[in-house]
């Protein structure tokens, strides 16, 4: 069984529905299936097929065709610096690279065959010997916020378990449409193609995210469902704050995930989209996307119920096919309500990386770098990354908590907190803050406000105002880069 089974079922069940594109001129499931079968016949088995480009028809076609051919599909971010793109592609040792025309020259020597997306439909044969069909479906570079990126391995079994265990085949209404704003090299971008084909839901891709273009696409394409990462949500909220008339009426469900969402952003989004159902999805690249879901009812709790209101800060309940628990530093499970490291196991959990093999323990657990706790009803609360804790004078301070406080200060658009070396304290708290457009901020006023909210222990020792923060393509702050930049700017070498 491979991922192309999903498309085969969709083409069988609803051949004339549009799979991808606009409702009047998009590609139907039958047409996409035919295109995939033709392309799969041209691909050699067992060698990675790399794609460097925006999400949409080409990425979806290659994902299914590579699977049908028995070859891993490996999407790579083309917006990184050129040398880095070349390096990431080379490490995959691909048989075929498909890229946008602007990257063709740079990538020319990375694989036996390099073609542009424009020539994909004419591809008849890739002249590379086939090998054993691979059970690897997808190779995805992790975001590398705290370490260098590594290629996570997801098998057909992992991804099919995710789709088939959590979704009901063909259950989408024929008027439904998902707006795809995440790139193909993000696990949510892969999951969206598979899930929506299985549901029978049309997908429209937004090649590059921009909040106005996103809101425009919702209106133009009668979009009913969308998934965004938190930075996209924050920018959509800011655009609507300035111009509420941009809101479309068709949107029913707005899912978000991929990183921690600041409370203030979510609260404003709920107010700006009063009739939309919000869903928070938590998962990792290594878990084939979502493993916990905070549903629509949880997002609009009874304001007099403090437990229900508190759960808005959780990532929801774990899906039934995955087990999650929390362990202490010695690796022993802790009781409900206690904090520790989050670990998980189940059929959709991969946990292997290219070149290093499986990182699962003997009992099949994937121990993550996330800290959190579970409540009595199984709601999972995340408390930041284990490596995103600043230890100042022996006290553990969660960077996420301080970031949330900064975001509650008037005029703050983005905030990131890191620990920088300090002779007296071991580490001290340094915050980088980006102001909203047209607002001028005072570092000392921000520090005073955080002291009111959190007390002096958790008040940043330094607040640096910046034009922007170093981000990954999907909006996670690159803390290792930020830390280096702050250390360099705060402690000039003499």
């Amino acid at each position, binding site marked *: 069984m491979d991922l192309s089974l999903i498309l085969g079922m969709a083409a069988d069940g609803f051949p004339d529905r549009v799979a991808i594109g606009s409702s009047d001129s998009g590609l139907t499931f039958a047409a996409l299936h035919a295109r995939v079968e033709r392309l799969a016949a041209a691909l050699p088995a067992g060698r990675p097929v790399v794609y460097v480009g925006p999400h949409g028809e080409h990425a979806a076609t290659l994902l299914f065709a590579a699977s049908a051919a028995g070859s891993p599909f490996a999407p790579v971010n083309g917006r990184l610096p050129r040398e880095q793109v070349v390096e990431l592609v080379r490490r995959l040792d691909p048989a075929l690279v498909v890229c946008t025309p602007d990257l063709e020259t740079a990538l020319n020597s990375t694989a036996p065959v390099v073609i542009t997306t424009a020539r994909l439909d004419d591809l008849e044969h890739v002249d590379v010997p086939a090998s054993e069909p691979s059970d690897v479906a997808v190779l995805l570079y992790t975001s590398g916020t705290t370490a260098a990126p590594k290629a996570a391995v997801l098998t057909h079994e992992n991804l099919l378990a995710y789709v088939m265990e959590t979704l009901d085949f063909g259950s989408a209404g024929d008027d439904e449409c998902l707006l795809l704003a995440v790139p193909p090299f993000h696990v949510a971008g892969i999951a969206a193609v598979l899930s929506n084909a299985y549901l029978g839901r049309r997908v429209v891709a937004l090649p590059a995210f921009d909040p106005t273009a996103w809101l425009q696409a919702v209106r133009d394409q009668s979009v009913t469902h969308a998934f965004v990462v938190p930075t996209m949500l924050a920018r959509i909220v800011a655009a609507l704050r300035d111009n509420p008339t941009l809101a479309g009426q068709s949107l029913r469900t707005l899912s978000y995930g991929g990183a921690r969402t600041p409370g203030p952003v979510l609260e404003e989004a709920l107010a700006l989209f009063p009739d939309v159902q919000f869903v928070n999805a938590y998962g990792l690249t290594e878990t084939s996307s979502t493993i916990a879901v905070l549903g*629509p009812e949880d997002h609009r709790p009874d304001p007099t119920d403090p437990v229900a209101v508190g759960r808005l800060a959780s990532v929801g309940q774990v899906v039934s096919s995955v087990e999650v628990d929390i362990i202490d530093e010695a690796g022993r499970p802790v009781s409900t309500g206690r904090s520790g490291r989050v670990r998980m196991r189940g059929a959709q959990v991969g946990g292997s990386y290219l070149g290093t093999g499986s990182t699962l323990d003997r009992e099949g657990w994937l121990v993550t770098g996330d800290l959190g706790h579970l409540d009595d009803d199984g709601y999972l609360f995340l408390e930041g990354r284990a490596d995103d804790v600043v230890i100042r004078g022996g006290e553990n301070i969660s960077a996420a908590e301080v970031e949330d406080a900064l975001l509650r200060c008037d005029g703050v658009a983005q905030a990131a907190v890191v620990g920088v070396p300090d002779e007296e304290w071991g580490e001290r708290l340094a915050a980088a803050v980006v102001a909203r457009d047209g607002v001028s901020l005072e570092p000392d006023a921000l520090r005073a406000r955080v002291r009111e909210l959190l007390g002096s222990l958790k008040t940043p020792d330094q607040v640096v105002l910046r034009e922007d923060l170093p981000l990954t393509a999907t909006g996670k702050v690159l803390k290792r880069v930020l830390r280096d930049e702050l250390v360099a700017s705060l402690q000039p070498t003499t």
Partner: protein
Amino acid sequence: MASELGKRYECPSCGGQLLVVAAGTGQVLCCGVEVDVLQPKKLPSSD
């Protein structure tokens, strides 16, 4: 009972689960007995 595309079944005897990936007219049997239709789980769509 004909098998319908995308329907899930569970064997009342061994607990094994089946997913129909191509529709057909035959009966679905496991352990010599007819399998039960599984009601789909209602989950909010996250992608």
